[in-house]
């Protein structure tokens, strides 16, 4: 783990090595560990820069706060729930103090989260939740809000828009929450909007591109394409460009990363939402430290998306960027630096 080199951090000039409250999005006051702080991470996969950014946020925050990262495991995909459970078992064997855990499934990881907590490990959920009483905290983007904001934006531009939805992997909670937020908002407030195509796919740019090309061939009018993950939006943008139809159709993407930013600059994508995964990772580490220290944390009250874990910190005010914002987009909460290797921290 590279976390050890926090010792080498230059701390001259009165500069504090740790994060500030602003670095934590204003959600928490930073703490430093009072005792040992060995962290382990179990994430669904690294096929999407989103998880790389989470890992970066956590690793960087751990470095600043003086924790070590013992191991970072990825399950290789959402479908590999059983692999993930084994990885958490292996983290327990490693005797880490806290596990930053982004479960592949809600209930399916309840038992293992319980088991980890029972073994004396602090469990923090990142971005995905486990149905466990014993998880100390969860940190999550408020996913329905992502879909709601998209519905509002489309409706404002064209109240009778025809929409195609790339709804992400079958059964993934985050994807379903976004789509649900979108659809609920239409039902509530935008009766003119109509979903003409919807397809769930893996988070794979080439697959999305193919699907959108097929949709375009039908000649049906599509005013907007909703993509619940970055590669889906990239695929949609590329398909539109290939057919020369990027002017007719707006593409809305739920994730800000290097490529969606590119696409925004080129006009292939028209709306990008920041999920702030780096911030999510930072908050996770801070919550772990606070739990280890025995500090109490006051969370704002809200309507929880999932009944468990009992304490979830939601990130609400995700910024939205459109072509107007090009040039002034803040990316440090969304992207890992170029040279960051998530598998080796």
């Amino acid at each position: 783990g590279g976390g050890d080199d926090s010792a080498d951090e230059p701390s001259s000039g009165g500069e504090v090595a740790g994060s500030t409250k602003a670095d934590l999005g204003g959600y928490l006051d930073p703490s430093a560990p009072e005792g040992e702080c060995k962290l382990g991470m179990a994430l669904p996969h690294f096929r999407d820069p989103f998880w790389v950014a989470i890992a970066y946020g956590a690793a960087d925050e751990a470095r600043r706060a003086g924790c070590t990262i013992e191991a970072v495991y990825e399950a290789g995909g959402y479908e590999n729930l059983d692999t993930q459970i084994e990885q958490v078992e292996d983290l327990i064997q490693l005797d880490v103090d806290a596990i930053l855990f982004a479960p592949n499934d809600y209930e399916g990881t309840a038992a293992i989260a319980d088991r980890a907590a029972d073994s004396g490990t602090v469990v923090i959920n990142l971005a995905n939740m486990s149905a466990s009483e014993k998880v100390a905290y969860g940190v999550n983007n408020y996913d329905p809000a992502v879909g709601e904001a998209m519905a509002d934006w489309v409706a404002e531009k064209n109240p009778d828009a025809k929409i195609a939805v790339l709804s992400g992997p079958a059964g993934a909670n985050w994807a379903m929450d976004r789509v649900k937020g979108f659809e609920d908002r239409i039902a509530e407030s935008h009766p003119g909007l109509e979903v003409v195509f919807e397809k769930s796919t893996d988070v794979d740019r080439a697959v999305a591109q193919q699907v959108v090309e097929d949709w375009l061939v039908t000649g049906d009018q599509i005013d907007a394409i909703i993509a619940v993950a970055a590669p889906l939006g990239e695929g949609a943008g590329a398909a539109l460009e290939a057919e020369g139809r990027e002017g007719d159709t707006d593409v809305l993407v739920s994730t800000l990363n290097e490529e969606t930013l590119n696409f925004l600059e080129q006009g292939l994508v028209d709306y990008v939402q920041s999920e702030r995964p780096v911030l999510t990772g930072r908050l996770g580490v801070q919550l772990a430290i606070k739990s280890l220290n025995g500090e109490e944390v006051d969370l704002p009250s809200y309507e929880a998306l999932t009944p468990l874990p009992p304490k979830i910190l939601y990130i609400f005010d995700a910024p939205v960027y459109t072509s107007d914002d090009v040039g002034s987009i803040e990316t440090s909460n969304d992207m890992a630096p170029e040279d960051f290797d998530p598998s080796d921290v």
Partner: protein
Amino acid sequence: MPQGNESETNQVTEAGREDDGLSKSSKPSSRRLEFTRLSAALLQAGIPLAAVLLCVFFAIQEPRFATLDNGVNVARQFALLAVFAFAQAFPVLGGGFDISIGSQVGLASVVMALATQSWGLAAGLGMSVVAAGGVGVVNGLTISTFGVSPFVVTLGMLSFARGLALYISDGVPIYGFNDNFGFLGEGEIGPLSMPFIIATAVFVIGWIVLNRTTYGRHLYATGGNVEAARLAGIPVRRVKAISYILCGVITGIGAAVLTSRVDSGQPNLGTGLELEALAAVIIGGFALGGGEGRLGNVVWGAIIISILSNGLNLLRVSSYIQLMAIGVVIVTAVVLDGWRKRVRT
């Protein structure tokens, strides 16, 4: 022409082994004999030897690998893979293979969850076996009735059964079971985990079927030379069909354990499992093309794969390098085994 690319390769490599039936009966030269005897124990080992080397390596690198706790941990992880490897062994022996195992798991998981909700755990277990076994029936009948390639049929089934699982469950996991649901996957009897006990039972029964029943002989014969078996009056189509059904039934048992372990019906459960199971079988010395292989060696194949992933996790090897290491170790183990076989004859 049998499909035995594997066994053919062997023939080439072990050039000249095939005709010298006499070599077995009479003595190799005396110096050679001594050497053979000295290292016999080791060389006989082959794949087991590879497994032991792996263990020693991991134990030296990370003492926690060799703890009893981790032993129990690995035994459970091993058991979950082994059941599916035993399932795969049957069609492989008959000259085919089943790459729909992973999808059978998804389907069985969903069906089991629904059945448990309605009729209780026993019915759930039964329905898991019925669902995967049913898939096996369709596979077996299609392959044997139409005489088409097992690869295509089970690939089609891989797609179909997964689609069906998603369709039945609407793509979302099925939750809400009481505590004893987890017993199959997480329970323990004495020091033995339930998955381990179940895997052992499946092994014993499978071994008896293969080595002590008429059906077992017929399966070996059919895989070894289908035309000869047919001419000898063996109902080769039925024999093949049954191998897929047995594969499905065993997969159903494994699926129940896995479903219990993830405490939910997961339509995406088991993705990619078919290749892992096939790898365990082939590492265990079975020939793709059929007719060759002992069930006991499949155990070793499964042990290698599960030790490998556990050990690398405990060594905190980064996930990308893990992928590389897994590739290298698997190939090395098989090369080692091939070399042993050549030395022995």
